C-alpha cells in the first residue's frame, strides 16, 4: 500500500548539490528512520517525498505511482512538522479536520473522523481549545491527529519530538510506536537523535553529505556498521576509535570499540590510562579515561561505580567486539 521508492534523485540549491544521487526503497508498513548529522540532507529528502521541495532530477514513487511532480495533497502523504505547524486561529477540532473542511466533506463525516482521531490520541476534551492553550505534548498530538484524518498511505515526521523535554520525548516515542502498530501505515521519520532512531525504527537509513552510508535494521547497524561514520554515529556514547600501532596490530587503519564493550581492570589490560572524569547515571557509569597515545577513551561500566579521579585503570578490548576499518570502510572478518 505505502511503499516509497526514490530513484536516482538529485537535489541542488543553486550551485550547491545537497543530494548528489540517491536511490532508496522504503517498504510498505515499515517505520523507517532517516538519521544523520545536521545538513546531511535528511529533511530535504523528506520534503521531496512530501512534494514541498522539487527534485532536480530523478523519480519518486509512492505505492507504484509516480508522484515526482504531483502536488503535496495528491501524494497520499501526511506530514508532522518539528514546529507542529498548527493553525493558531483555529480550534483543535478545526486543525484536525482542516483537510476535510477544504475537501468539503459532509459535516457529520468530519465530526466522526475528528472524533476518531481525537479518541486515538486522547484529545477529546481539548477539541474546542486553540493551540496556544495546549502544552507541547498536546500540540504534537494534535499535529499527529491532523495527519491521521488524512488517512495517508505514508506518514512523514520531520524531527517531531525535538521541541519536547526529555521525559515527554520518551513518552511520545512510545505513543508513536504504538500508533504505528495500530494503524500499520508506512512511516518515515527524520531525526538527528540516534536514540530515537534505534528505539523506534524497524529500518534505519544513515545519511552523510546527501548519500546513504548504510541502510538496515537498528541492531544490524549497531553490530556491523559498514563504515566508520555509521559506527561513530550509531550508539551512545559514540564508539572509540584507535589508530596507529594498535590498529596496525589488527591489520587495519582504525580499530573501533564501543564504550560498553571495554572492560575495566585494576591489574592488567590492553591499554592503561588515567581517569579524567566519571558520570554516574544510576544504572551505568560513563568513565572518561585519558591515554597518552590515543587521547580520550570512553568506557561504559554497568552499575554505579565510585572511582577516584586521576587514578590509573587498565582497559581490555575483547576480540569479539572489535570493529576494523580501512579507508573508512569495515573490513569483513
Amino acid at each position, binding site marked *: 500500500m505505502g511503499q516509497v521508492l526514490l530513484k536516482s534523485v538529485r537535489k541542488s540549491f543553486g550551485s550547491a548539490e545537497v543530494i548528489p544521487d540517491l536511490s532508496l526503497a522504503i517498504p510498505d508498513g515499515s517505520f523507517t528512520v532517516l538519521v544523520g548529522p545536521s545538513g546531511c540532507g535528511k529533511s530535504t529528502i523528506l520534503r521531496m517525498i*512530501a*512534494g*514541498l521541495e522539487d527534485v532536480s532530477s530523478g523519480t519518486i514513487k509512492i505505492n507504484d505511482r509516480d508522484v515526482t511532480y504531483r*502536488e*503535496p*495533497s495528491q501524494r497520499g*502523504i*501526511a*506530514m508532522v*512538522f*518539528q*514546529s507542529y*505547524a498548527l*493553525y*493558531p*486561529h483555529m480550534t483543535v477540532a478545526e486543525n484536525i479536520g*482542516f*483537510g476535510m473542511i*477544504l*475537501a468539503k466533506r459532509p459535516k457529520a463525516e468530519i465530526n466522526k473522523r475528528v472524533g476518531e482521531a481525537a479518541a486515538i490520541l486522547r484529545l477529546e476534551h481539548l477539541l474546542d481549545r486553540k493551540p496556544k492553550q495546549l502544552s507541547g505534548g498536546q500540540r504534537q498530538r494534535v499535529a499527529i491527529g*491532523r495527519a491521521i484524518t*488524512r488517512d495517508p498511505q505514508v506518514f512523514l515526521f520531520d524531527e517531531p519530538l525535538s521541541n519536547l523535554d526529555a521525559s515527554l520525548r520518551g513518552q511520545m516515542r512510545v505513543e508513536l510506536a504504538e500508533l504505528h502498530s495500530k494503524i500499520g501505515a508506512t512511516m518515515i521519520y527524520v531525526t538527528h537523535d540516534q536514540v530515537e532512531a534505534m528505539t523506534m525504527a524497524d529500518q534505519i537509513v544513515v545519511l552523510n553529505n546527501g548519500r546513504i552510508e548504510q541502510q538496515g535494521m537498528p541492531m544490524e547497524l549497531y553490530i556491523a556498521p559498514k563504515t566508520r561514520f555509521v559506527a561513530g554515529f550509531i550508539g551512545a556514547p559514540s564508539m572509540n576509535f584507535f589508530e596507529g600501532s594498535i590498529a596496525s596490530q589488527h591489520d587495519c587503519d582504525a580499530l573501533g570499540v564501543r564504550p560498553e564493550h571495554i572492560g575495566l581492570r585494576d591489574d592488567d589490560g590492553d591499554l592503561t590510562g588515567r581517569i579524567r572524569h566519571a558520570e554516574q547515571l544510576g544504572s551505568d557509569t560513563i568513565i572518561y579515561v585519558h591515554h597518552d597515545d590515543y587521547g580520550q577513551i570512553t568506557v561504559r561500566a554497568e552499575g554505579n561505580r565510585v572511582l577516584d579521579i586521576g587514578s590509573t585503570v587498565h582497559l581490555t578490548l575483547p576480540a569479539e567486539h572489535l570493529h576494523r576499518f580501512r579507508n573508512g570502510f569495515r573490513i569483513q572478518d
Partner: protein
Amino acid sequence: MPAQRLAKLSLDYLLLAWIALVFVFPVVFMVMSSFKSDLQLLRDSASLRAFLPVGDLSFDNYAKAFQRAPIGLFILNSVFITAVTVCVSLLLASLAAFSFVFLQWVGRSVLMAAVLATFIVPFETIAVPLLLIVNNLPWIGLDGFKTSWLNSYQVQIVPFIADALTIFLFVQYFKDLPKELVEAARIDGATWFQVYRRVVMPLSGPVLATAAILKFLMMYNNQLLWPIMVVQEESYRPVMLGLQYFFQLNTAWGEIMAYLTIITVPVLAFYLVLQKAFIASIASTGIKG
C-alpha cells in the same frame, strides 16, 4: 522605590509629557480657535490663551463653515474615495506580497526590487504623465460611456491603489510567518488562494491594521495636488480641496479652524478603532507591520 530611580522615572515622564504636548498643542489650538471669533483668535494667538477655552466662545464658525462649503458632500467624497482605495489596496497589496513571498516564479525578485524602487519616485514627477493617461482613458459607468476619467471618483482612486509601502509592509510580515503553516495547508489540500484566505490572512490582523491606517492617512490627508488637476466639478471634490472655499475674498480663520476640526473627526475615529492593533504591531516589530 529608591530616590534616584524615582527621580529618573519623573524625568522620563516629564520628557514624554513634553513631547506629547508638542504634538497635541496644534490640535488644541485648532479646536479652541474654532470656537472663537477672528478678532479674539488673532488677539489670543500671541499668548497661551490660544490653547485655552477662554473668552467669547460660540459655534458660529461651524454654522458659517457649513454655509460657505458643502462640507457633508466633501467628507462623504473623501471617506468614499479613501475607504474604497484602502480596501482594494489591502486586497491587492496582500495578494502581491503573498505571491512575492510564497510562490516560486521566474523574475519575482527583480519585480520585487522594481516595486520597492518606486518608493523613491515622488508623486509630483509622475503627476503630469498620469494626467495625460487618465485624460484619455475610457470608462463605462452607471452614467454611460465616457472618454475621459477627469471629474470622477475612479480618477482619485485607481492610481493610488497599488503602492510600494503597503506591499512592503505585507511582504515583511509574511516573511515572518512560519513557512510550515503554509506547507501544512498545502499538504492538507489547500489551493494557493485557500492558503491566502484561510491561513495567511486570518493571521495578518496587525499588518492589516497598520497598512489600513497608513493608507487611510495617506489618502485622506494628501488629496490636494491630484484632485486640483483632475477634478473641476464640485460633486467629486474631497475635503482638502474644500479648504479653497475659505481662502476666497476674505480669509476667515475661525471658519477654517472649524472646517479643519470637522474634517479631522473621521481620521481620529478611524485611528481610535484600529489604535490597539496599530500600536501592538508597531511596538512588537517596528516597521514590519
